[in-house]
């Protein structure tokens, strides 16, 4: 660091050397380490997030590829097979036997329930997204309110100090007036 003083007889370099020596001395005395000095000097201000600027990409991400998290369910899914060519034959047999199968059990309520569950999952995704957004906003507002409370506390302490000073001055004045016989 350098500085300018437009005064005669001031050796800026010598002053700088003295300043650096004084700081080194303090460091040696254990008052502050280099690391602490760096941390104090470079600590940035925490960025300010505005609650109304918050945007979450969660919903867009979920809606983009629902197959990753939601059941892909259609009414004929229970007859499908994943065994390639043999599977296709198996699917055809299952479809052919579907009327007979229905004599033993009714898959329709199960299909309806699973289909509904798929829709419910999608609704939960929306709900979760909105909750995440709202909780983050509330969290930011709480941080702000906490700061505001601390500010008010600071102001209150300052005002209390002012009040105390005023009281001391008023008391002092009353005492001196009494000594002068004014009261």
């Amino acid at each position, binding site marked *: *660091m*350098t*500085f*300018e*003083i*437009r*005064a*005669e*007889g*001031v050796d800026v370099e010598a*002053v*700088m050397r*003295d*300043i*650096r020596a*004084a*700081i080194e001395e*303090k460091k040696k005395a254990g*008052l*502050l380490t280099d690391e*602490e*000095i760096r941390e*104090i*000097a470079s*600590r940035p*201000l*925490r*960025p*300010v997030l*505005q609650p109304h600027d918050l945007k979450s990409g969660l919903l867009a991400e979920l809606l983009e590829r629902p197959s990753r998290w939601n059941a892909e369910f259609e009414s004929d899914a229970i007859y499908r097979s994943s065994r390639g060519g043999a599977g296709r034959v198996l699917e055809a047999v299952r479809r052919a036997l579907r009327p007979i199968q229905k004599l033993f059990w009714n898959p329709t309520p199960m299909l309806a329930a699973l289909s509904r569950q798929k829709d419910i999952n999608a609704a939960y995704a929306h709900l979760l997204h909105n909750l995440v957004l709202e909780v983050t906003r509330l969290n930011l507002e709480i941080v*702000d309110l906490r*700061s*505001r409370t*601390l*500010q008010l506390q*600071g*102001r209150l302490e*300052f005002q209390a*100090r*002012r009040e105390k*000073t*005023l009281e*001391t*001055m008023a008391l002092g004045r009353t005492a001196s007036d009494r000594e002068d016989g004014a009261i």
Partner: protein
Amino acid sequence: MSPAGGPRRVHQLLAALAYGDAIGNEALAIRGHLRRAGFESDIFAEHVHPRMAREARPLWQYPEVSSPDTVCLFHFSIGSGAARLIFHAPDRLVSIYHNITPAEWFLGFHPHLAGLCYHGRRELAAFAPRTELALGDSEYNRRELEAAGYARTGVLPIVLDLESYRRPESPVARRLYDDGRTNILFVGRVIPNKKIDDLIRVFALYQRLFDRHSRLLLVGDYRGHEKYYDRLQELARARGAQEVVFTGPVDDDELRAAYRSADLFLCLSEHEGFCVPLLEAMAFEVPVVAFDAGAVRETLRGGGVLLRDKEPATVAGLVRRLLTDEALRARVLETQARAMAEVRATDFGALLLERLRPVLQTPAPAGAAAEVRAPS
């Protein structure tokens, strides 16, 4: 000054005439000098502080005095109704520019103000063809006017009411601050370009390394900039800096108490169009340490200590040195006394009339007001 046929009416237009504000005080001083020189002169303002109610007329009365023979000294400010009014009025226009903080300083802390500042600079450029003469209160501001396209520019430094500094200070505030602690003072609005965060960093180091019994006294309004203020409070707490006092807006007597209680004035601001508090501190014989940015060097006129960079530990060391080395302090105060002698020697009234001479001694150019375009 005004020849036969020259204008006799020189009025001023402001967005706000505030109490204790440097621009308001300058407007009052200009009016006084103009009236003494025989001109009809009033101040018109959009917003007038109740304490200044007698000093200004409301903006809506301006059309009563507006004419092609009236010279209007317009104190340029962002997003004001006064700007829209004068842009379309037939008056001869002299703009007085006190600087617009670049928008980027407010990004992240005050997006609305950032927008206003951005558009304010565009508006400044739009006023260039409409303005006969543009005066900046420093050479730095004059250069900005030139860059914005103003053809005729000049410098009219802010006038200080040095007599007012002799008035008594608030005894309560004086007693409050004169409690044996070392007072490091900064005066100015709590806004990001003033780099109050850097002041807190330097002070935190100063307090840890040299003087536990010290106070950072930050005198200035923070209303409207609560986000930045919040972060500063947080920074002070995180760094363990004790006695960082934000006074908020204060009356003149409390400001005088702050200057009289101050042991050193520290300014690490990175954008200043003039910086009146530097002159005030010198007038109160408080040693000044300031970072060389914007118009700071000009305003100091060779007084005080000018920092070329601001590595916090070294600035803290320099502050300590100035507070403890009587000889160095005396030398710095000598430089400040010389600078203040220059300020005192300036005849503001004569300088004002000299700067306005090109407008006051010439009749209005025919059709000047008719050619203007509306601001974007």
